[in-house]
């Protein structure tokens, strides 16, 4: 947000620049450019006519006028290599163009239309993919005659499915994007939507795929020539390989040059594709792996006054490593306490750092994030700088977590019961039957009326509210003292939200649970929280009882937040016909 990204035009040309800044991309692009230029300039560069034979000099070594020597018929190898590239590379270009022309429009159509068009296109493509390329090419050669160009067109059609599948897959995903719906509502025709919104998305992957397919086409073409099924008379790299292979006993060195040309071209195409992928898909160099050492733990908190026994956070900072090696602080010194039997709301808008604070207590900050300074104690144990293994044990026993999206936190391929039993059996080492009994108890505890049915259900068979109850049951399975809930009801309907909040309230009362409830909803705060900490821009701006903060906020930001609440705004007045219409 603080950075100002470059405008679109600069960004687009930036992709090319990023490829060239990558040593791999620059190297392969240079090699490829040299090869292509040399082949294009063959008439200028080659020492003599590639077909000029002088049997007297056959197998002659390198010498003046023949930098690479002469082949079995006494033809100049350098000239043949340069001219041969024309057929080889030209053939590959033709094959790629045919594949693009056949595969991309078909993929766009099938992906965008879906339904029957898609099914029919897929059927054809699967058929083509089932054909063995070499056999088809051999058959074609037998029927159509030995022209390399015709064979390349056939090869293009055979590799077209590679483009079709790629494009179709991406387009089918994009078709459901809201911006495509919005374009449809804007009155754009189908072709225009595809041209403006869809092609942009598939452009990058197509460029990458083109480089790869070109490599494959060169390989297959050389293979055909090597088998002697090519055009015969004209020089190609494959045919040169064939000839060199026939004479490998007499002149083993001859195989080097066409082999090198093919190898270099193919290798640089593959490497260029990799560099293009990195550049176009915006995969910059990952931030430095090395994490800054966490600060030394603060002195044991036992004697420190004013720190809560269950969870106490002092001076916590969280920073993220940026791509350029610097780091950006997102939480600047947070103090927070949760006592047993108390629900504390951590309130803030997006980007306030509330989730980062919760994640650093759990020790689950995403890649690149780290605690910069400060102290976090859970039941008196300092957890900043704790090794991962100890942290995991803590998460299993003392601290539990309820996420925002209940569904994405259940594994769709296991039943609810299995997912509840597995961690209990693992952690407590109890038998299957015992785990089952406990799991059913837990489901009953979270007020699920038919625990047996839910126990045997898969996640897709239960509702979102039910899934959140199951996750709460799972969180309770290890009997934690502290529960960290990250927007636990944001994804739920209001009625289900009211029930889940009631459940949280009950658990807190009955079990003396301490809860840190991360939320953006002041109504939720009023409903269940005893105390509130209001976060803004990585700092806690106000912390007090919920009653105090909601009825008499001191901080200007809290006041602004409460001012935006619509609860007591008057309902809109009834509609009146517009004045000019009544006249």
């Amino acid at each position: 947000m603080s950075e100002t990204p470059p405008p679109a035009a600069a960004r687009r040309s930036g992709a090319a620049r990023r490829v060239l800044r990558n040593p791999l991309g620059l190297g392969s692009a240079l090699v490829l450019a040299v090869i292509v230029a040399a082949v294009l300039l063959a008439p200028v560069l080659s020492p003599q006519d590639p077909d000029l034979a002088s049997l007297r000099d056959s197998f002659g070594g390198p010498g003046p006028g023949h930098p690479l020597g002469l082949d079995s018929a006494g033809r100049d190898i350098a000239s043949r290599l340069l001219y041969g590239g024309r057929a080889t590379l030209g053939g590959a270009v033709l094959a790629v163009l045919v594949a693009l022309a056949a595969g991309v429009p078909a993929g766009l159509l099938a992906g965008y239309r879906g339904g029957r068009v898609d099914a029919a296109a897929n059927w054809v493509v699967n058929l083509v993919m089932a054909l063995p390329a070499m056999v088809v090419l051999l058959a074609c050669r037998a029927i159509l005659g030995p022209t390399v160009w015709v064979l390349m067109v056939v090869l293009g059609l055979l590799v077209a499915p590679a483009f079709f599948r790629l494009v179709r897959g991406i387009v089918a995903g994009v078709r459901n994007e809201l911006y495509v719906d919005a374009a449809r509502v804007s009155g754009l025709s189908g072709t225009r939507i595809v041209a403006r919104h869809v092609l942009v998305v598939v452009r990058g992957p197509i460029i990458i795929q083109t480089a790869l397919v070109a490599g494959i086409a060169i390989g297959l073409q050389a293979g055909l020539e090597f088998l002697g099924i090519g055009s015969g008379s004209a020089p190609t790299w494959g045919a040169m390989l064939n000839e060199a292979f026939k004479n490998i006993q007499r002149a083993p060195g001859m195989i080097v040059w066409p082999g090198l040309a093919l190898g270099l071209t193919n290798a640089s195409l593959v490497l260029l594709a990799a560099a293009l992928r990195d550049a176009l898909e915006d995969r910059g160099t990952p931030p430095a792996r090395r994490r800054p050492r966490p600060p030394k733990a603060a002195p044991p908190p036992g004697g420190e006054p004013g720190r809560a026994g269950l969870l106490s956070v002092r001076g916590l900072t969280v920073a993220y490593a940026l791509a350029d090696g610097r780091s950006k602080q997102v939480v600047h010194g947070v103090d927070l306490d949760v006592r047993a039997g108390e629900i504390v709301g951590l309130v803030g808008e997006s980007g306030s750092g509330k989730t980062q604070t919760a994640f650093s207590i759990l020790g689950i900050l995403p890649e690149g994030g780290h605690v910069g300074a400060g102290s976090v104690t859970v039941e008196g144990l300092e957890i900043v700088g704790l090794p991962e293994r100890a942290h995991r044990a803590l998460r299993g026993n003392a601290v539990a977590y309820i996420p925002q999206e209940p569904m994405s936190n259940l594994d769709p391929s296991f039943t609810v019961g299995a997912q509840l039993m597995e961690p209990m059996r693992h952690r407590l080492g109890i038998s299957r039957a015992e785990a089952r009994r406990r799991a059913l108890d837990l489901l009953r505890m979270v007020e699920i009326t038919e625990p047996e049915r839910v126990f045997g259900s898969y996640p897709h068979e239960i509702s979102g509210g039910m899934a959140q109850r199951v996750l709460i049951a799972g969180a309770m399975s290890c009997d934690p003292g502290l529960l960290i809930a990250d927007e636990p009801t944001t994804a739920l309907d209001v009625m289900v939200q009211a029930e889940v909040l009631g459940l949280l309230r009950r658990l807190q009362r009955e079990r003396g649970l301490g809860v840190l409830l991360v939320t953006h909803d002041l109504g939720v705060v009023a409903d269940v929280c005893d105390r509130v900490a209001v976060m803004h821009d990585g700092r806690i701006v106000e912390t007090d009882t919920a009653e105090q903060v909601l009825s008499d906020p001191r901080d200007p930001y809290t006041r602004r937040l409460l001012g935006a609440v619509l609860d007591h705004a008057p309902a809109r007045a009834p509609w009146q016909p517009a004045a000019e219409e009544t006249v």
Partner: protein
Amino acid sequence: MTKDDDLLVIEDLRVSFPGKGWRAAPNEVLKGVSLNVRRGETLGLVGGSGSGKTTIGRAVLGLVPVGSGGITFAGERIERATGRRRRLLSRDIQVVFQDPYTSLNPSLTIGDTLSEPLRAQGQGRAGARRRVGDLLERVGLPADAASRLPREFSGGQRQRVAIARALAIGPKLIVCDEPVSALDLTTRKTVLDLFLEIQERTGVSYLFVSHDLAVIRYISHRVAVIHHGEIVETGEAAEVTTRPRHPYTRNLLLSAPVADVAGQRARREAFERAYAGPNTSAER
């Protein structure tokens, strides 16, 4: 209410989606919905997830096929409009979607996104550019926003862009599908105020879909409550949100928490009285 005032009339609208799996029974999402929106009016459509509220909006926009029933816009039946007719209708019916992050094409500049509907309606390049400047000003965005990409903007700013796009060709009706649900509290109010101001200035009608009664109450003249694909209650905003008649509306109202400890305690108690016992909610 005179017939002339009606801009949009929906009668006995039914929409089904194909069932999952082979020969599965189709899933009826809308079971005979009737409602109307007058010129310059906001009709708030409120309901829980899966109630079919979004589907009504999408049916009006022609984004889902209509099973049976009628949609009449400005006196013309449009439920079967396709192709050319639908493209012409886009002059009059526009949309603002919920998610400001996916409703803007990430690779098009704001200016390109906004001029798209203008160009589709046959406006010239220069005219479109001038209009984009006006639109940005009207939704409170800086003029240089036109040359920037969506990712440079916050959620609230993106939603302003989406509103500007909907306004571009001066529509008569805007379908607003949860347009403030993804926004932060403070942003939400300013965006709602923008909606109100635009309506006052242009006389556009809104079909405003939301799950949040407080938002609906603030923006709507009238409110329709939808539950399991049926409208259970319709009435003036103040009436429905203070003296709901249908039990579903009552529960909806009682379960929405208010940001006031004493008020919420009273509401919570009333909710638990009205709604005692676990798992009696809509979920199965």
